[in-house]
């Protein structure tokens, strides 16, 4: 693992100059039992950091793609038949789980089970706006 990481860093050193601080990320002790305030935020950045192996530039890229995708899914949720809503909810659930948008993933999962529930669509919309604002703030 450590060998692979250092190789990865070498290849990307130029592109990801902001990564300097991350060299120690995966050698540090895990906090597996402590509190996890990150999991309650619109995007769980700790989850995301694990997915990207601490690559901040990649995180921003992934989050921007997610924001666009979530917005597109929301449009599909609001004007489509039940079958399409279920498909869009499923897509949204997967995309949200990958980046650590736990609230969106939960709502999308419920919507997949109950695609006719317009209150859930409204909840999904609100959660997406929250996540978009969160992402926007990180991208400043």
């Amino acid at each position: 693992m450590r060998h692979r990481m250092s190789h990865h860093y070498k290849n990307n050193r130029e592109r990801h100059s902001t990564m300097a601080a991350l060299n120690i990320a995966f050698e540090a002790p895990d906090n597996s039992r402590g509190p996890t305030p990150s999991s309650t935020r619109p995007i769980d950045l700790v989850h995301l950091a694990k997915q990207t192996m601490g690559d901040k530039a990649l995180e921003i890229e992934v989050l921007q793609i997610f924001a666009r995708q979530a917005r597109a899914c929301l449009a599909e949720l609001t004007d489509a038949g039940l079958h399409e809503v279920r498909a869009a909810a499923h897509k949204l659930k997967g995309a949200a789980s990958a980046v650590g948008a736990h609230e969106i993933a939960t709502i999308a999962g419920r919507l997949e089970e109950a695609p006719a529930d317009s209150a859930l669509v409204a909840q999904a919309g609100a959660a997406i706006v929250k996540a978009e604002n969160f992402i926007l703030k990180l991208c400043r």
Partner: protein
Amino acid sequence: MTRLTIVAFDGTRHELDAANGSTVMENAVRNSVPGIEAECGGACACATCHVYVDDAWSEKVGPPAAMEEDMLDFAFDVRPTSRLSCQIKVSDALDGLVVHVPERQG
């Protein structure tokens, strides 16, 4: 080895020998200093290793980088000397460093 003092919120002084190149957070976690959670393990992806750098050391340690500042926005009771301890690397220049643990993280 560098002397590092982490003052817990209750005032207990944890005086540690820290290896150069290690971070203040790693030393706190390895020595079970209460109040340093380090949820993300040092990836600068949370704000649960927040500390106040002692006034005497603040200038030498320096200000947080931009991404660290983004994370500090999540921290509780942020002050001008606030830093994330996973981003402070121990070195000879910081021999004797003193940091204070806040009341709580996040």
